């Protein structure tokens, strides 16, 4: 439901003279929201993330952080499904929240640019993201500021590169299948 009582971006100014005015981008909890297959997705900026998650935990009942992961959109072959006003960046950090009281789920997608792959850590709000954020920084190279233990968690300590980035090769060995002789 479009919320017309907030100071949204350029659409408010254009609505005056335009007959078929673009609807106000939908907002919830103060940030833009989109819907994907019936699931609500919030789009805060990196600076708004921690405050948003803290408010959701304290005021709205989303006490459980279910998942923190990331996506590297470098090779994405479709237009990005983002609400107007959000600049698409290479990395997205995706946070999943859950409310036990209402069994409601929320997804938060934060754009993280390639030039500055950092994101504030949610550890102080949800301690359960410690391992999840370590995995994201190991696999994608997104550095979580103020994380208590920013070391690699899945790959060996001295591994170079971030495996889930699209420019990291899968590392397959080319295999030519021949008939197996003399299998016992």
């Amino acid at each position, binding site marked *: 439901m479009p919320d017309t009582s907030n100071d949204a971006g350029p659409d408010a100014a254009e609505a005056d003279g335009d007959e078929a005015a673009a609807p106000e981008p939908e907002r919830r909890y103060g940030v833009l929201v989109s819907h994907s297959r019936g699931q609500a997705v919030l789009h805060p900026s990196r600076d708004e993330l921690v405050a948003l998650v803290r408010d959701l935990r304290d005021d709205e009942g989303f006490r459980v952080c279910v998942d923190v992961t990331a996506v590297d959109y470098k090779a994405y072959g479709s237009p990005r499904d983002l609400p107007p006003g959000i600049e698409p960046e290479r990395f997205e950090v995706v946070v999943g929240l859950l409310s036990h009281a209402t069994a409601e789920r929320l997804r938060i997608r934060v754009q993280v640019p390639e030039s500055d792959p950092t994101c504030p850590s949610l550890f102080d709000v949800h301690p359960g993201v410690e391992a999840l954020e370590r995995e994201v920084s190991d696999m994608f190279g997104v550095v979580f500021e103020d994380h208590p233990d920013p070391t690699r968690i899945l*790959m060996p300590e001295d*591994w170079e590169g971030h495996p889930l980035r699209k420019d*990291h090769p*899968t*590392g397959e*060995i080319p*295999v030519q299948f021949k008939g*197996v002789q*003399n299998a*016992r």
Partner: protein
Amino acid sequence: MGWDVSKGLEGLDHNAITGRLEDVVRWARRRSSWPATFGLACCALEMMGAGGAHYDLARFGMEVFRASPRQADIMIVAGRVSQKMAPVLRQIHDQMMEPKWVISMGVCASSGGMFNNYALVQGVDQIVPVDVYAPGCPPGPETLIHAINTLHEEIASGEVLRRRQQTGAGAGIHVGQRDGQPEPQAVSVAGKR
């Protein structure tokens, strides 16, 4: 009677007496070889199933899975070996006392399996010498027992040592999968398996 002491009992030029002794030693080795616990992933569950009541490794003298590699004879590498785990695998293998054998259980241990990527060692024979490869994903307890029986037969006949000299590493015997077979299959050393 020449004796290359560095090779232990195998270095003896056998006469009638020491040949018999050799046979006795080999008989004892195959009857009571203890596996080291090296269950990594899904294959570990099938390995534990082989030790369970339905399949029962105890009848082959192998129900005691020793946790300490110093007390173990066979290392059954059951599961996928990641890059981080590879040094650990080597360390455990090095800690085992001679004579020791390695069974590579499952396709991930034998060749990397379905995971042909950066994260796995594509076959533990890159790290430890493998004597028997058991295929399957995971190999059922019947296949594992077939691999173990094959290894035992090879130990008893001395074949495993001959093959090791040939390859320079492990004996490298491939067994077939035996899961779901309607009748038990006999294991024989000579000829195709």
